[in-house]
């Protein structure tokens, strides 16, 4: 900006002409009249340290917010860049993405306190999960771990990459709690300044600039007052998935950690089981041995699991 300011270009012009993109995407909401100012949905979800504080049931807001990798390669890129930084004995991680035309590279200086969790960014972790990874790594290494410092560093890094559209925060548990938990209520995280607008909310509290609302599922304000007419079905493992869990629990857990619902895993296993059955019956007709089809069955299962895994390249 300074370089272009020297040539007489204002900061606004600089941003408009040089740092802009070829397409804009906007999410619009209705502009409401002064008499009806209940619209509080302006701006993105922001995270503050207060979300690490436990409620009376020992849960934290940070454990309900997942990180969605918008570009799909963050985890592996950070892992690779960390290795490169180590080789070069550098503290900086260089990064490139294509959200902006022209200057699409930036470098980060990441504290070792939060570096351990970065390779897991693509695995849909929770904010709490990332923090605990860092803590576990520090304890494993026998280092002191300052909770507040680590939380601040993690939130600052997440805010940095979120502003570059590399990640999106996503609260899935919000739905699950509404559907299954009658007395505990839902967590709602709002931006500073939006709390007043959410009329009817009960138990609103302010902790460190973050508004944290704990309210009953049936007393949620606005259109969510009524319980859902058809609560979403709980995602439970099917019989085939259970069988696979008995044989290889780690594989199923790995897939779950990557965000695959049980229903999807079950459906594909079912489809493969049918195919395998058809193959077996065909092999029996031809007089081939059972051992051969059994070995093929195992390889098919392995094949499915490999297929479900994201591209590790």
């Amino acid at each position, binding site marked *: 900006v300074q370089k272009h300011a020297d040539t007489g270009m204002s900061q606004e012009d600089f941003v408009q002409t040089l740092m802009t993109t070829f397409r*804009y995407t906007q*999410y619009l909401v209705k502009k409401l009249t002064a008499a009806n100012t209940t619209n509080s949905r302006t701006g993105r979800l922001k995270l503050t340290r207060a979300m690490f504080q436990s409620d009376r049931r020992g849960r934290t807001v940070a454990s309900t917010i997942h990180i969605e990798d918008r570009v799909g390669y963050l985890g592996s890129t950070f892992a690779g860049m960390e290795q490169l930084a180590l080789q070069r004995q550098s503290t900086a991680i260089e990064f490139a993405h294509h959200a902006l035309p022209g200057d699409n590279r930036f470098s980060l200086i990441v504290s070792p306190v939060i570096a351990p969790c970065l390779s897991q960014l693509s695995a849909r972790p929770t904010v709490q999960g990332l923090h605990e990874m860092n803590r576990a790594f520090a304890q494993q290494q026998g280092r002191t771990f300052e909770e507040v410092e680590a939380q601040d560093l993690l939130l600052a890094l997440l805010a940095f990459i979120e502003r570059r559209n590399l990640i999106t925060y996503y609260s899935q548990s919000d739905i699950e709690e509404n559907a299954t938990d009658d007395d505990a209520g839902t967590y709602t995280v709002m*931006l500073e300044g939006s709390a007043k607008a959410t009329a009817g909310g009960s138990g609103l509290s302010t902790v460190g600039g973050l508004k944290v609302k704990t309210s009953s599922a049936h007393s949620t304000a606005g259109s969510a007052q*009524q319980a859902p007419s058809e609560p979403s079905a709980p995602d439970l493992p099917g019989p085939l998935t259970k069988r696979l869990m008995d044989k290889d629990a780690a594989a199923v857990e790995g897939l779950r950690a990557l965000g695959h619902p049980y229903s999807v895993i079950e459906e594909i296993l079912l489809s493969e089981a049918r195919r395998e059955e058809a193959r077996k019956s065909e092999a029996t007709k031809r007089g081939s041995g059972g051992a051969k089809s059994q070995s093929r069955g195992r390889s098919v299962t392995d094949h499915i699991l490999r297929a479900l895994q994201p591209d590790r390249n």
Partner: protein
Amino acid sequence: VYYRQDFHATALIKSFYGAAILPDILHHAFQGRSSAFLTPGRPVRFLFAEHFHPEMVLNLLGQLQRQGALDFEMVVLTPDDSVEAFIRDRFAMCERLLGGGIVDKVNIVNVTVLQYAALHQASGGALFDYIEYNGGLSRADDPSAELRALRGLLHDSGGAVGLSYFSTNHHVTRLRNMVDSREKLFMVPFSLEATRLVKAYLAQHKLGHLAEDHELVVHLGGEAALSEHVLYRADQAVPRVQWRTYSQAEAAHLVEEAGFEVASWVPTAYSRPFGKSPRSKFAQKSTICASDHALSLQRR
């Protein structure tokens, strides 16, 4: 595609599918509150308002299916028969995975946004929770009227519009000037100069990854690229009008004039996480039926 990244389907073909991506809608328009959007106590209603990428219809259905948010209704507006045929073809292809119940929730209507808004106003139909309007500002004959029509179709609270359009920047200006001042009589009518010029320019400015975004290349090449598009890619739909670009101020004015406010404003992210994946070719063909169908394709 049962990858966790599939919500960001743009990655698969390196062109922009639109904004109907559940985590993004929740994050940017609802501050991450899933229940406020996906379980409002009535069916969630989605509208694809004439200007959209047809793949995104399938992509959103896949997202909703995986979320277990099956209490929804979807209306797809398109006056283009080929778009309807494309979607119905995909439904048939993915019938086994989607299930009849999900397909029944989608209603494809052969009208424009303005026609639908007039019909909707006359009949007093239900309002929508999310409206996809991808590229409408750049392509519509009267974007201002369409925006006002969309406002009438949206819920007062708990509704959001996903809007995208081409932006003005110095690259667009320079490219248009270069295309206009090129030697137009050279090898007429077989010259691909405008398209090649745009691609070369993008490559020289570290924007080579955008050269495969056909829609963007045609947009940057202006009238000349359009005529080349008509000559050499007659099998694809031809844009009706020259696509407009907007500065931030122009877009903000248009949006405000139509009675909207911006909940969030994001640039477009391009990426290619599937670049080395052996499944990427299939993934380019379809966004949601990758399970048994994909496996059977792989075996062949």
